[in-house]
């Protein structure tokens, strides 16, 4: 069952169409990637989910019923442009945001202590935000986003500004939150993290959905008859009418090839042919990276 659903959402600003009939369905406890080039309409869409702006057309559902103003308590939002009051103290500020999400002061305090200790920022409680490094501020903001234990979390580029170590910490926290039952919508340009984290994606370009589905299905679908072939030892093969060799590489006394086969022939036939050349260790369909798919899809559309 899907936790969040958007049906045929459209939004217009003046003469500019920001979203054209976009629908997504986010299954419970899923990490859902919302991808697209700059200016595609992602931010508008995220703002609509957060009820910051209303859609001109379309409907939104949370947990099977229509999204209501009071549902802001069930949603946590980490915007791409991070914002904190610079002159305010870290602890006070976190407390303020928690209270705006409807937590009582005592409860907010208890949870904040827990998270601040967990992310090792408790020493910064009494400092002003402007004294903090950017990464520190990001951590504070991350805490304020997840503190009220929302069912639906929306992260817009959550890893920018973090060093690899902290990126890993935040990544693990996101996975931990998912385990505890949260559903996550995740918007990013970092395709590696999409492959690593996302179960499903929707790709938006020029206000429209142009690709959606499970990450693995999409990658297989776009695989397009490419295979990775590994021989034991030093082996030479040449392309023929059945396959082309895209890449060739020798490593640790292994020969690695990327083949593109013609669709008219079965892989068994090719394998039989190749077995004569040497000892095959592995033969796998080569999945294109999300990065390649992203670029190819957008470029063909443009």
């Amino acid at each position, binding site marked *: 069952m899907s936790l969040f659903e958007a049906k045929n959402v459209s939004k217009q600003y003046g003469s500019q169409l920001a979203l054209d009939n976009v629908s997504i369905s986010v299954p419970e406890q899923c990490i859902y990637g919302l991808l697209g080039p700059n200016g595609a309409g992602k931010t508008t869409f995220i703002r609509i989910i957060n009820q*910051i702006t209303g859609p001109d057309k379309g409907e939104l559902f949370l947990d099977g019923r229509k999204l209501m103003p009071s549902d*802001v308590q069930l949603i946590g939002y980490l915007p791409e*442009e991070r914002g904190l009051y610079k002159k305010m103290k870290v602890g006070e500020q976190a407390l303020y945001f928690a209270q705006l999400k409807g937590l009582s002061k005592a409860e907010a305090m208890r949870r904040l202590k827990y998270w601040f200790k967990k992310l090792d920022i408790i020493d910064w409680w009494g400092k002003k935000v402007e004294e903090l490094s950017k990464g520190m501020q990001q951590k504070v903001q991350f805490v304020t986003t997840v503190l009220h234990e929302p069912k639906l979390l929306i992260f817009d580029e959550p890893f920018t500004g973090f060093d690899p170590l902290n990126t890993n910490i935040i990544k693990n926290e996101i996975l931990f939150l998912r385990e505890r039952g949260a559903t996550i919508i995740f918007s990013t340009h970092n395709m590696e993290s999409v492959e690593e984290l996302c179960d499903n994606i929707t790709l938006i370009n020029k206000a429209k959905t142009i690709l959606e589905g499970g990450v693995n299905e999409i990658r297989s679908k776009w695989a397009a008859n490419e295979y990775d072939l590994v021989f034991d030892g030093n082996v030479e093969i040449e392309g023929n009418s059945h396959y082309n060799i895209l890449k060739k590489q020798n490593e640790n006394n292994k020969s690695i090839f990327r083949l593109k086969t013609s669709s008219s022939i079965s892989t068994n036939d090719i394998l039989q042919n190749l077995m004569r050349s040497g000892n095959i260790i592995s033969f796998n369909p080569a999945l294109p990276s999300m990065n390649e798919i992203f670029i190819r899809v957008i470029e063909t559309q443009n």
Partner: protein
Amino acid sequence: MNKISVIIKREYVTRVRKKSFIIMTILAPLLMAGIIIIPTLLMTNQSGEFKKIAVVEDNSDLFKGVIKNTKDAEFVYLENTKVDDLKKTFEKSGFYGILYISPELVNTPNAVYLISSKQPPIGLLTYIENSLKKEIERQKLLAYKIENLDDIMKNVETNVTVQTKKLDESGVEKGTSTGIAMALAYILGFLMYMLVFIFGAQVMRGVIEEKTSRVVEVIISSVKPVQLMMGKIIGIALVGLTQFMIWIFLTIGIVGFLKTTILSKSGATEITQSMPQNLMAGNQQTATGTTQAAEISPQIAEFSKMFDNAMNQPWGLIIICFIFYFVTGYLLYASVFAAIGSAVDNETETQQFMLPVTIPIILGLMVAMGTMQNPESSLSFWCSIIPLTSPIVMMARLPFGVPYWQIIISMVIMLLTFASFVWMAAKVYRTGILMYGKKTSWKEMWKWLRYSG
């Protein structure tokens, strides 16, 4: 509602805790009191040192003993002394100055000179002028050979002060003072102007701060934009009211303190002689010089009456109106300021929008100043009805008495205008805070007004 109160609390607490707020709150009444008191003190204590002044004439003794000694100046009449001789030895003589009275003085009013190495204080000059004037008038009268002239003179000497009384509806007379009404009008009008402007601008800065630091997006994912805007406006209004209340109490405290100290000390001739007289402009009783003791009590009475007259102002009405006009006027302007703040990316861009907002406020202040001269003028009347200027002008009119129907009309119009302004501002604000990197115009804002959700 609960969330608005969280926002209000933050806006209030962060501002009230600022050092600048605390300093301003305490310093402003002291400064105000200082502005009133320091000139008075300066006039009172202008003497500082005791002055010995040599009085010389050319070959006559017409003005011998005419200028009486005062508590801080002694007039030494030197017979058969030439001014020029005196000038030569002036530095060693120990005199503060030489008053040279030429014999032509009776016919040429400026034939008298005070020669001194310093600039003599104005009080001293006035005293000398008055003494000489009296004497010359006396001598001229003498020429008419009227019998018992001195007795007649004593008999006719009078001091006139116009006492104003105001008839209220029940026909009861109340003592009033135009001077106090004017001062009050000035203070109230100006205070309103400052509060609307200072705190309205604070709202604008607050909105810009939230927009540029991008905090706003996080907050309006939790609360509605209108809630954030109103929370901010109300929070800052409470800061303003807090400051205003503290000012009132401090001012009452200072005035009360002054009243008791001045009146309690008045038994000692020192202060009564100078303070009340300086306060009551145009009262030149000092000129007689000799009659200090006799005139103390009427002066205390006068001084005391001034306070009573001040107390006779319709304070209840003034305070109620002030709070009403402050709240509505402030909300009106603050919501416009909030809308402007939401439409721009930084403070420098606010300039083009500020002017049309500033004009009615400045106009209001100018009319308020005119109101002090002529509270019944039709300009004052209309400006106290028109909502953009009424908070300032009506406050300036109140001390002179305003019919209730006018106040009610003005208030109703104010309420309607303020409600529609807040409504419009909220619409502009809602769109504006999410717009970045776009130069906004009035036309653009007008478009936002009509955007849905």
